[in-house]
């Protein structure tokens, strides 16, 4: 009885979706390329060129590059060429195997020689020793990389204190070129939701970062700033909003994630990576007018 009800509802759902869909858009710029008459065996490899996601672009947010960027020497960053490989090697040094395909990251920058709370509201990432990974690594469902190939293991960065959100980082390789990219996932262990923040390509000789504006009826308007590949000497990152609020975090594995309730004047923001003495290792920032007005990008 219940099975027939399930079938009936799924049929109705599928039919409603199909009927709600519209005609295809006109195809602009179609090549009119003639198809080969011969079967070609290289089908699988041909597919992977379909689409490689670019990291920051996935957020549909515009950039400004800080004019007084103070990138540190190559010793503290990972370099443009092969940067992800070097970063991953550092990230997983002394990492602890937690379960098959999952390692707990232990790398962090130096202890700050100052009180981070003097710079702003401290938001902590709890390491795997403070808050164990409670999700389930399901490679097929959680990391469905049709356009690229997942490269194990997944690195568990930690849990955002006071939340049920856990950060994991993993690599993907794009077969046409063999290029590596990184993807930072935030897994909500309560809802089961997973949000890949995009494959963040190395954008300069510094760190990668992205911003998301999340409008939620229950929690209000939230701005999330995520960073990865922060310089190794980063003791804290400071995110400062235009309305004068500042948020501080000690990264784990060169990854940081800060969120705060947005106001009408929260943007632009600036991001600074500070060393143990409070000196700026790297700085960046962005501005997007639509977000500052609380308008979603959807």
């Amino acid at each position, binding site marked *: 009885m219940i099975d027939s009800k399930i079938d009936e509802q*799924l049929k109705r759902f*599928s039919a409603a*979706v199909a009927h709600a869909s519209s005609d295809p858009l006109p195809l602009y710029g179609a*090549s009119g390329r003639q*198809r080969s008459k011969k079967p*070609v065996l290289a089908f699988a490899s041909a597919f992977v060129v379909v689409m490689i*996601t670019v990291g920051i672009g996935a*957020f549909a947010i515009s950039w400004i590059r800080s004019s007084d960027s103070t990138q540190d020497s190559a010793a503290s960053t990972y370099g443009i060429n092969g940067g992800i490989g070097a970063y991953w090697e550092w990230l997983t040094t002394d990492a602890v195997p937690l379960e098959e395909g999952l390692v707990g990251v232990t790398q962090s920058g130096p202890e700050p020689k100052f009180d981070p709370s003097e710079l702003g509201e401290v938001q902590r990432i709890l390491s795997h020793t403070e808050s164990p990974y409670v999700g389930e690594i399901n490679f097929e469902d959680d990391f469905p990389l049709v356009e690229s190939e997942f490269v194990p293991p997944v690195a568990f960065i930690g849990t955002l204190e006071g939340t049920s959100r856990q950060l994991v980082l993993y690599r993907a390789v794009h077969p046409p070129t063999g290029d590596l990219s990184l993807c930072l996932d935030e897994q909500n262990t309560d809802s089961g939701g997973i949000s890949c923040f995009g494959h963040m390509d190395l954008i300069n000789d510094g760190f990668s970062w992205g911003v998301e504006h999340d409008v939620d009826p229950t929690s209000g308007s939230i701005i999330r700033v995520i960073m990865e590949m922060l310089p190794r000497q980063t003791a804290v990152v400071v995110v400062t909003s235009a309305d004068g609020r500042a948020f501080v975090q000690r990264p784990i594995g060169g990854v940081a994630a800060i969120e705060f309730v947005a106001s009408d004047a929260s943007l632009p923001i600036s991001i600074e990576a500070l060393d143990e003495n409070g000196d700026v290792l790297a700085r960046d920032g962005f501005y997007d007018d639509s977000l500052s007005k609380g308008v979603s*990008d959807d």
Partner: protein
Amino acid sequence: MTVSDRMSPVNDGELYELHGRALVAFAASLVGPSDAPDVVHDAAMALFESGTLAEAVNPRALMYRAVLAKAKSMQRSIIRRRNRERLFAESVVYNDPEVLPEVVAAVVGLSQQQRACIFLTYWEDMTPAAIGELLGIAEGTVKHHLAVGRDKLRRVLE
């Protein structure tokens, strides 16, 4: 020249014309009806520009996989996904009020690959083996996705 040779599409535009409507419906099951045409268009353009369709043994499967890949890339933004899921659910209920809202919420909350398997099963009447071949995944995986979806609905309906 056989009849089937004459009938088979020979260029990208014809492939798009032949499969476009079904692909939009498929994309609607993944991202909702409002974003579906864009997903299909962008996926198709990427395929056409890459030139891979010209050499593909099974261009239909390639197009379905491209749409699935494009839909997944769109999932990478929380805000987009939440808004999309809300609009998606509203459109389904609008088109068939007899679909229970809790069923809609449950199905929309499934992963895109799970939803793809459900749509192809219940709308396209495809077997797990055929779905697996189309999407490039194992038949067992398709069955697993269907079982997960049905289990979720069973909990909702009981």
